[in-house]
C-alpha cells in the first residue's frame, strides 16, 4: 500500500502564443515559484524535482532538464526528466507522486513546460524518415481519421465537435491563465473556420502555447494548507500498430481508467466524480473519451455533450478551465489537467470553480493515443 500523498501547491504561467520576455529557464521558474508560494515553501524545502516536456525537437534543446536544474533550485538534488509524448505532463505528476508514495522523498516539485514559439510542432511531428511514405501531417493529420471512424460508429451528428469547441472556449473566458479567450465565441464562429484535416475545423483544434505548470507534492506528515489528496494514479501504454488495435476507443485508456477508478473506489465515474480535466486537443475527443473513460456507454458519449452534461453548469463538467482546446503548451498540457483537477478539489479554481467539487479526474494522453496517464484527487484524506 502506497503512502499518502497530496498536492499542496500549484503554479501556472499565463499561457500565450509567445513569451518573448523569458527564456525556457525563466518560464519554468515562474511556474515553480508560484507553486512554492502557494505551498508557502522555498526551493530549499524541496527534496527532488521531476521535469516533463514533449519531444526535444520542439525547442531543439537536447536534454533540457540538465540546463533547467539551476532554475529550479536543483543543485545537489535528484532531477529526473519524464517523456511520454503528449501525456508527459500527467506522467510527470505520477512519477513525482510515486517518489512520495514510495517513501523516497517528502516533498517533490513537478514541473512541465513547452515553449512552442521557439519552433513549430507540426514541423517537429512531421519529420519524414527515408524509405517510408507516411503522409501524416501533424497531430491533426494523425487524429482526423480516428475521429471520422468515431462519427461513423456512433452516428454522432456533425455539430458535436463544434459544441465542445464553443463550450471549452466559454470556460476559458473564466480562466485568467487560458491562452485562447475569444469573446463572443459561438457555433457560427467555429463553423465559419476552415476544415484543416477534415473532419477537423480550425477552431476545433488546440492552440500552440508557451507556458509552464508546476505542483508541489507532499507526504502526509508534510501536508500544509488545503491539500488535494491523491486517491489513485495510473499509466498505460500500447503499441501504435498492433493487429486489432482500437484507435477510437483504445484498450490502454480503458485499462488505465479501470485501474485508477479501482484505486479510488469509483464504480460509476459520472456520478462519483464531480469534475474532470481531460486531454481534449481536438474537440471530438470529448465524446470519444467520455466513452473510453466510462462516463458513457459505447456510442453514447456525444449525447452527454449534446445534452450539456459536460458544460460548467452540467452534472459532470469537463474542462472547466477551458482545457487543451484553450491552452496548449504541449509538454505542460497534461500537468495542467492534473493541476486543475487539484485546484477544483482545493476550492481554488476561481471563476471556473465547480461548486462543491470533492473528487476530480485529471487525464492526459499522448503519441498516437497510445500513452495514458490519469489521477483522481479528492478533498478528503483517502
Amino acid at each position, binding site marked *: 500500500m502506497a503512502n499518502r500523498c497530496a498536492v499542496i501547491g500549484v503554479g501556472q504561467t499565463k499561457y500565450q502564443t509567445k513569451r518573448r520576455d523569458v527564456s525556457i529557464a525563466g518560464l519554468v521558474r515562474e511556474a515553480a515559484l508560484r507553486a512554492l508560494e502557494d505551498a508557502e515553501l522555498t526551493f530549499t524545502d524541496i527534496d527532488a524535482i521531476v521535469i516533463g516536456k514533449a519531444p526535444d525537437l520542439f525547442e531543439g534543446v537536447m536534454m533540457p532538464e540538465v540546463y533547467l536544474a539551476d532554475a529550479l533550485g536543483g543543485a545537489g538534488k535528484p532531477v529526473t526528466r519524464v517523456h511520454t509524448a503528449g501525456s508527459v505532463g500527467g506522467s510527470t505528476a505520477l512519477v513525482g507522486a510515486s517518489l512520495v508514495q514510495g517513501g523516497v522523498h517528502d516533498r517533490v516539485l513537478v514541473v512541465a513546460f513547452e515553449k512552442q514559439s521557439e519552433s513549430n510542432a507540426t514541423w517537429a511531428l512531421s519529420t519524414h524518415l527515408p524509405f517510408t511514405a507516411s503522409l501524416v501531417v501533424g497531430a491533426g493529420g494523425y487524429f482526423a*481519421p480516428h475521429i471520422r471512424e468515431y462519427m461513423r460508429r456512433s452516428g454522432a451528428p456533425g455539430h458535436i465537435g463544434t459544441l465542445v469547441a464553443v463550450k471549452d472556449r466559454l470556460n476559458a473566458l473564466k480562466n485568467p491563465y487560458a491562452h485562447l479567450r475569444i469573446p463572443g465565441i459561438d457555433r457560427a464562429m467555429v463553423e465559419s473556420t476552415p476544415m*484543416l*484535416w477534415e473532419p477537423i475545423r480550425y477552431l476545433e483544434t488546440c492552440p500552440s502555447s508557451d507556458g509552464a505548470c508546476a505542483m508541489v507534492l507532499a507526504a502526509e506528515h508534510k501536508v500544509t494548507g488545503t491539500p488535494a489528496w491523491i486517491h489513485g494514479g495510473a499509466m498505460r501504454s500500447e503499441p501504435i500498430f498492433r493487429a486489432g488495435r482500437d484507435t477510437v476507443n483504445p484498450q490502454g485508456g480503458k485499462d488505465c481508467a479501470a485501474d485508477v477508478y479501482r484505486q479510488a473506489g469509483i464504480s460509476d465515474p459520472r456520478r462519483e466524480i464531480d469534475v474532470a480535466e481531460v486531454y481534449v486537443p481536438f474537440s471530438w475527443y470529448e465524446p470519444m473519451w467520455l466513452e473510453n473513460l466510462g462516463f458513457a456507454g459505447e456510442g453514447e458519449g456525444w449525447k452527454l455533450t449534446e445534452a450539456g452534461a459536460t458544460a460548467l453548469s452540467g452534472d459532470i463538467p469537463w474542462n472547466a478551465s477551458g482545457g487543451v482546446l484553450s491552452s496548449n503548451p504541449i509538454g505542460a498540457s497534461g500537468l495542467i489537467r492534473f493541476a486543475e483537477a487539484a485546484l477544483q478539489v482545493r476550492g481554488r479554481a476561481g471563476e471556473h470553480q465547480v461548486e462543491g467539487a470533492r473528487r476530480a479526474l485529471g487525464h492526459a494522453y499522448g503519441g498516437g493515443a497510445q500513452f495514458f496517464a490519469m489521477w483522481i484527487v479528492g478533498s478528503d484524506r483517502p
Partner: protein
Amino acid sequence: MPSDHPPAPEESSAESLVAEHVLEFPGGYTRTTGPVIGRFLTELREGRIVGVRTAAGRVLVPPLEYDPETGDPVTGEYVQVGPAGTVRSWAWVGTPRKGHPLDRPFAWALIELDGAGTALVHAVDAGTVKAMRPGLRVRPRFRPEAERAGHITDIACFVPEVSTMAAPIRTEYRVRPGRSLARFLEGVRDGVFLGGRCAHCDKVYVPYRTTCPECGSTIGEEVELPDTGTVTTFAINNLPDPRAPQVPFVSAYVVLDGADVPMIVLLGDVPARDVRQGMRVRAVWVPPEERTLSMGNIRWFAPTGEPDVRL
C-alpha cells in the same frame, strides 16, 4: 506637333502652367545652439547622451534651455542617460521618403531613455512592424566617430535589444532501412507487398517486420499480399504537403486483403468528396522500368470500382 510633347487639353491656357522651384539657402542655415543644446550635441559627438535637470528635478532629454513647466532656466546639471531606452509609442513608416534617416521601413518612435523624464523622437530600425510594441527596449546605433558632427543624426537610429537569437541546429544522419524494411522495399521494387505472419498470434503485419508488436515473438513467415485492400478511414487534408500531388489530398488507412493492420497511404484518381469508408482500392504502380527500392513506386491507391465493404 512634336511626338514627345504630351498633349495638354488646354495647352494654351495659363492655368496649366507648372514649374519646379527650389528654395534653399546656399550652404545651409546655421543654428547657434546656445550652451544647453550645445552641450547635448557635444556629448552626442562623443557618443554620449545627456539630459539636463530642471529645478523640479526632471531630466529633459533632449535638453531644453527653459523648463516648459515653469519658464525658468534649467539647472546647469547635466545627467548622462541611456544609452538604452523604452519605446513609449511609435508610428510605422512603410515607404521611407528621401530625407528619412533610413532607406528601409522603420518606425518613428518616442523613446524614453533610461534615467530621462521625457521621451526623445528617433528612428527605430526594427526590420518589421511586428517587432514594434510599446515597451520595446532599444539602444542607439551611433555613427562611427569620424563621421559624427554634433548632430542628432550622430545616432543613426535605435535598434531593439537582443531578445532572441537564431539557434541553427542540424543533425545529419545516415539511415539504413534495416533488415525488415529492406526486405519490404525489395518486394515493392518487384511490385508486391510483403507482410509477416506472427505464428503465435496468427496475425499478418504489413510492412514486413521481424517481431510481433503484440506478443514480441519473432516473425519468421513471410507473406506476399495482394495490392488491393479496403479503406477503413481517412482524412481530407487541406494543408499543403510537398509529398502530396495537390490540395486537398486524402490520406487513408487501407487494410490490404489478408493483412491485419492498416497502412497509411495516399488516395488518388478520385475526388476527395467521393472517398468512402469501406471503399475498395488498388495500388497504382509506376511502370516497372521506373521502379526503385522505394515507396515512391506506388503513386497512390485508386478505387477499384468494386462494391464497398461493410465495415
